[in-house]
């Protein structure tokens, strides 16, 4: 569903990403770990079609993103590190707005249903988004993904800055979406969350995918040691 083949991106002499190969099947959650500047966000931007690859290809549901970005994006939902949306609109109105942008029209009950499934308390549905906490905003982002019935989900450090409870709730939410058949690619700094939520884990450094693990086959201590070892390599 989400696939990269030899994916590379350079800015002049700077190689932001080099020959990335990865695949996320429906139901899978692939967590990309790495320090700042490792190439995680570049990878996501390539999958989203925001930037063009120098070499290789990123594809979503068989659509090569840089060849047919519209078809690829039709299958994708994206949740950035901070879901800003429109502060003056309520959660329901924001959801309605972005659902309409996708060409989906849902009635009020359906929209509230998506927000509820995303874990947003009904008392908050009609409050302006500017009064929401970061965790609540992330939930609206998830609701937008649900409303679009996206088959692939790209997340850029979605739990960064969330408290442990909100972070845990968010992880459960995306695990639920994976169980419903979505393929999820998530960039994160959070080793613990990657180990707990992900089905696969990749560690990146300097634009290169240095190691890959099956989450169920590695314990937290080993993952941490491997991560630190890669970060310390010359």
């Amino acid at each position, binding site marked *: 569903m989400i696939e990269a083949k030899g994916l590379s991106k350079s*800015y002049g002499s*700077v190689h*932001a990403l080099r020959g990335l190969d990865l695949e996320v099947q429906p139901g899978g959650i692939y967590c990309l770990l790495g320090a*700042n*500047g490792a*190439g*995680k*966000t*570049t990878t996501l*931007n390539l999958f*989203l*079609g*925001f*930037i063009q690859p120098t070499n290789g290809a990123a594809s979503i549901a068989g659509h090569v993103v840089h060849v047919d970005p*519209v078809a690829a*994006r*039709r299958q*994708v*939902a*994206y949740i*950035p590190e*901070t*879901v*800003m*949306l*429109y502060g*003056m*609109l309520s959660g329901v*109105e924001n959801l*309605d*707005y*972005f*659902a*309409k*942008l*996708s*060409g989906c029209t849902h009635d009020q009950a359906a929209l509230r249903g998506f927000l509820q499934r995303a874990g947003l308390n009904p008392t908050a549905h009609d409050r302006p988004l500017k009064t929401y906490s970061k965790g609540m905003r992330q939930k609206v*982002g998830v609701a*937008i993904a649900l409303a*679009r019935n996206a088959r692939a989900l*790209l997340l850029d450090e979605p739990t960064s800055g969330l408290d442990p409870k909100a972070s845990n709730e968010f992880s459960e939410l995306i695990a639920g979406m994976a169980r419903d058949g979505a393929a999820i690619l998530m960039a994160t700094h959070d080793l613990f969350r990657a180990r707990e939520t992900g089905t696969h884990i990749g560690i990146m450094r300097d634009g290169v995918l240095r190691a890959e693990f099956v989450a169920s086959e590695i314990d937290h201590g080993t993952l941490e040691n491997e991560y630190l070892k890669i970060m310390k390599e010359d």
Partner: protein
Amino acid sequence: MIGAEWSLLRREPHLKWGAIALLLLVGLAAWNGRMLLESRTVDAALALQESRETIDALAVQAANGNATATSPGAAAFGAVSATIVRRSATGEALAIGQTDLEANFQKLTARNAYAALAASAPDNALRLAVGNFDVAFVLVWLIPLLVIAAFFDIISGERERGVLALAVVAGAAASRYLWIKWLTRTLASIGVTWLAVAIAIAVGERSWTAETAITLVGWGVVLSAYVFFWASLALACNVGRGNSERHAAVLAAAWLTLVILLPAAINLLVTNVFPAPSRVELAAQLREATEAADRAAAKDRDRWFFDHPDLRSGEAERAAYYRSVAASERMITDAITPQLSAFESRAAERRALTRRLQWLSPAATTHDALTILSHTDGASQATFRAAVLIFHNRWQTFFFERIDGDRLLTRDDYARLPTFESPPTSSLRSLRRASTNVLVLLAIGALLCIYCGMRLTRLDAIPPQQEGG
């Protein structure tokens, strides 16, 4: 999509309050214009009534054979004056323009042509630089600020907030999404502008006529084109890669340049290239001409009495005196006519140069169109002055024929005194004249939109600093 954008737009409190403040200022400016016009109208009506009463009284006295009332010379050079009233045009209260530089009414006698124009002042090339507090001034200055507030971050803000990225991923084509956003905001700004014009006309005009409707449409169309220009400029500024702060600074600089500095520079240039003829010089020439004419007339009169010594007494002497005064006034008029013509041609040259240079500033272009529509532009003032001179000539001729022919004034003569008709104004004709300005504004806006259209097809959905990492 436009509905969703509209719902978004009306939730932005700074725009809502900005629009309300604009509408209040427009109402205040229209009220100010109306009060000014009404006070002038009252003064003019009083002066007109006084003139009529004097003429009626003299007519009665002429019927009774009163010597002063029947003397055409005494009437022409003292007792009788015509009150010239400039008719208020539809929309004048909205763009006071140059009408505050010219007298709304004046008393005119059979003396020379300079006296007929004594109350007139040289028209300012461009009032925009100093800015009357009228509706035209408020709208020309403040509409761009409202548009800048609504548009300065139309793309960069969406990108910085991450909304553009979400919208693009949600399946919206970035260019279509942004065009719809731009269109909604442009239509909303145009809506506010039309509302402002409607309020201005409701407050500033005493009655609604077909002419009022044409003025409303004219003002609405001109200001819509002005909004279109600023909205296009803001979009053109946003298609670059700068952030919102930079765009706000660039647009503020554009406002300063196009609305304040350029019109002021045009004003300065025009007044330096074509300085107004010196009033002191004109007054000195008038004095010299008067003295020369008086000397010549007295000489003629003395010679006449030398030839006709038997007539040097009573009525005949008085008639001869007035004939010499009439001759003197004719000579003065002949002497200063070239000066007055130079004055008018200088004003015309200034207007022509101003009109050529105004295309550099959309604010000046818009202001010009608004004063044209309100009949308060320099050309309308020149038309009025020309009409005054024509009337003055008729008035002089009426009396001079009777003075030269030694014909006493009768009651019927008073009834036949020439009356002044202010030149008619036509809102439709003004609409045609202002259409060039509208077309220029639309053309510049359209060019900016074409440029934006080309740039939007390769727009970045994310800020440049997020491209790596």
